[in-house]
C-alpha cells in the first residue's frame, strides 16, 4: 500500500522498504485455493509543498500453496500513484498497477486502476499516526476474465515516526468478485500484513 506524505517545505524525497505476508485466496468453482508467501518491495516518493505527492513502487515474492493440483507461483508488481491532501487529515489518491502471477506453465497479468482516500490522525501522546484507507478499482483488466462485479481495497494500520524514519504496520485487503461466465464464479482476495520502513532522503518539514 502507498502512504504518501505531504510536506510544507520544499520537495521532499523518501524511500521505503516493504515486507508483506501475502495471502492470496482464489475460488474458480473448485474450492478455495490459498497461496501464501513473503512479498518484498521498494518505493520512492516525492512530495511538494502543495500537498501533492507521487510515488512509484515495485514488489515481488514467491507464494506457496498446499492446495491439491495447484502450483507454487511468483508474484510481481509495478505501480505508480499520485496523491493530494485537501485537508490535514485526508489524502485523496489515484494510481495504476500491474501485477503478474506466474507459474512454470502460466502467467496472468492484472492491470488495475485504483481511486481512494486515506484518513489519518496523529496520536497526542506519542509519535504515532492512525491510518484508515479505502478505495475502489474502476478498472480491472485480466486476460480471459470479465470485469469484476466487486473490486475494492481497504487498509488499516499505524505509523510510528522517529526522526527521519517512519515504521508502519498495516492490514490490507483486496477483493475481486467476477461474474459467472458459465463455468462458475471466480472469486479472488488478497490479504496482506505489511511492514513498512520509510526514510526521508532529503530533509523537509512534515505536516
Amino acid at each position, binding site marked *: 500500500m502507498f502512504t504518501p506524505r505531504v510536506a510544507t*517545505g520544499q520537495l521532499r524525497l523518501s524511500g521505503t522498504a516493504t515486507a508483506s505476508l501475502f495471502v492470496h485466496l482464489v475460488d474458480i468453482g473448485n474450492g478455495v485455493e490459498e497461496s501464501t508467501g513473503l512479498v518484498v518491495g521498494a518505493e520512492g516518493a516525492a512530495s511538494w509543498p502543495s500537498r501533492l505527492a507521487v510515488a512509484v513502487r515495485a514488489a515481488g515474492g514467491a507464494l506457496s500453496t498446499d492446495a491439491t493440483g495447484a502450483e507454487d507461483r511468483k508474484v510481481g508488481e509495478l505501480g505508480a500513484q499520485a496523491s493530494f491532501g485537501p485537508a490535514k487529515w485526508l489524502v485523496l489518491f489515484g494510481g495504476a498497477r500491474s501485477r503478474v502471477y506466474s507459474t512454470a506453465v502460466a502467467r496472468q497479468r492484472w492491470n488495475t486502476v485504483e481511486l481512494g482516500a486515506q484518513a489519518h490522525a496523529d*496520536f497526542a501522546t*506519542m*509519535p504515532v499516526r*492512525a*491510518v484508515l484507507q479505502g478505495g475502489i478499482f474502476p478498472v480491472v483488466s485480466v486476460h480471459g476474465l470479465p470485469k469484476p462485479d466487486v473490486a475494492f481495497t481497504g487498509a488499516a*494500520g499505524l505509523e510510528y515516526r522517529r526522526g527521519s524514519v517512519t515504521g508502519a504496520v498495516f492490514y490490507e485487503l483486496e477483493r475481486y468478485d467476477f461474474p459467472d461466465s458459465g463455468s462458475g464464479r471466480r472469486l479472488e482476495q488478497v490479504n496482506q500484513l505489511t511492514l513498512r520502513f520509510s526514510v526521508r532522503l532529503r530533509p523537509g518539514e512534515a505536516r
Partner: protein
Amino acid sequence: MRRFAAWLTLLVAAPVAISAQASTAEALHQAQDLYERLEIERAVPLLRQVVSPGWAFEVTQDQRVQAYTYLGASLALLGARDSAVLYFRSAIERDAFTDLDARQFTPAQITLFQQARRLTFAVAARPVAPARLDPRTERATFTVVTTHSASLRVTLRPIADPNATILWNAVNDGLREVSWNGLLADGHVAPPGRYELGLVARSALLGRTDSARVYFTVAHETPPLEDTLRALGPDDLLPERVQPGGGRADLVKGFAVAAGALVLSDAATNGELGRSGGGLAVAVAGTAGIVGVTALLSSRHERALPANIAENARRRAARAAANADVARRNAPKLAETVLLLSPAAGVGP
C-alpha cells in the same frame, strides 16, 4: 424625461464651466498684454478684479499667484513701492517658489521682489516627480525652497515610522535640490509604502518658523522572489506535553484502527473464501489496541514528550534552514531592487 433633463442640464452647464476658467485666463492674458504694452493703468484694475473676492469666475492658485505678481510688478513701475511689495508678498505667501525672471522684469522690480521675500517667510517643496531610482547608482532629487536665509531641516520617513532620515540640515536661502539615495537611516533600501518629505525651517531674519510636508509613494521593482516557508503553526507541530485528555483520544484512535482492520477482514471479505486472512487483521488490531491502551495509561499524568520535542525541533530547524537558503538565493535579486517614486495626495502646510 428625467434623462433628457439631465442631458439638458449638462449641455447648459458645460459651456458655463468652461467659460468660467477661460474668463480668468483671458483676463490674465489681457492684463499681461496691457502690461507688456506698458498700459499699466489699464492692467492694474483688471488684475485687481481677478484677485478681488467679487470676481465671479474660478481662479486657480497659479492664476492668483500670477495676478499678484503682475500687480506687484505693475505697481513697482508706477512707483507705488509699498503696494508693490505687498502684492509680491501675497504671491510669495501663496507659492514660495514664486520668482521674477531677470530677463523680463526690471532691476527695480526685482529689488522690490527681493524685499518682499525678506519680509515674508515660507518654506515649500515641489510635489515629487515620478521617478525610477536604482539605489546602487542613482539619486532622487527633491526641490525645496525657503523665501530667504533660514536654517532648514529636510527629513524623509515612512508614514508609519516616526524615525526619520535627515536629508538636509543646514542654512539655506532660496531654491535647493536635495538628493536621496533610496536608503533609510538604518542603511536598508526604503521599503514599499507611503512616505513623507518633511521640511522645517526657521527664518534667520524674522525668527519665525514654517514647515511643509509632501507625500509620495515608493514601490519596488524586484525580480520575482522565492517565497519563504510560512511560520509553523499548532497544526504543524506535535504536542510536546501529554495532556490527561489526550490519552483517551488516542485510545479511541487505536481502537478505530483495530475496528477497521477487523471489519475489513470480516464484513468486507468474501465469506465464500473463508477467513484465512483474518489472523493478519487480528495481528494489526491487537497492535493498535495495545498502542491505544498504552497511550491511555501513559497519559494519566501530565509529562513531557521528548520524542515530540525532538521532532518539533527538527521541523523548526528544517524550516529555518530552508528559509536561510531561500534568503540566500533571494539576496542577489533584492540587490537589484529599483525604487519607483510617485507623488501622493496630501500636501500639508
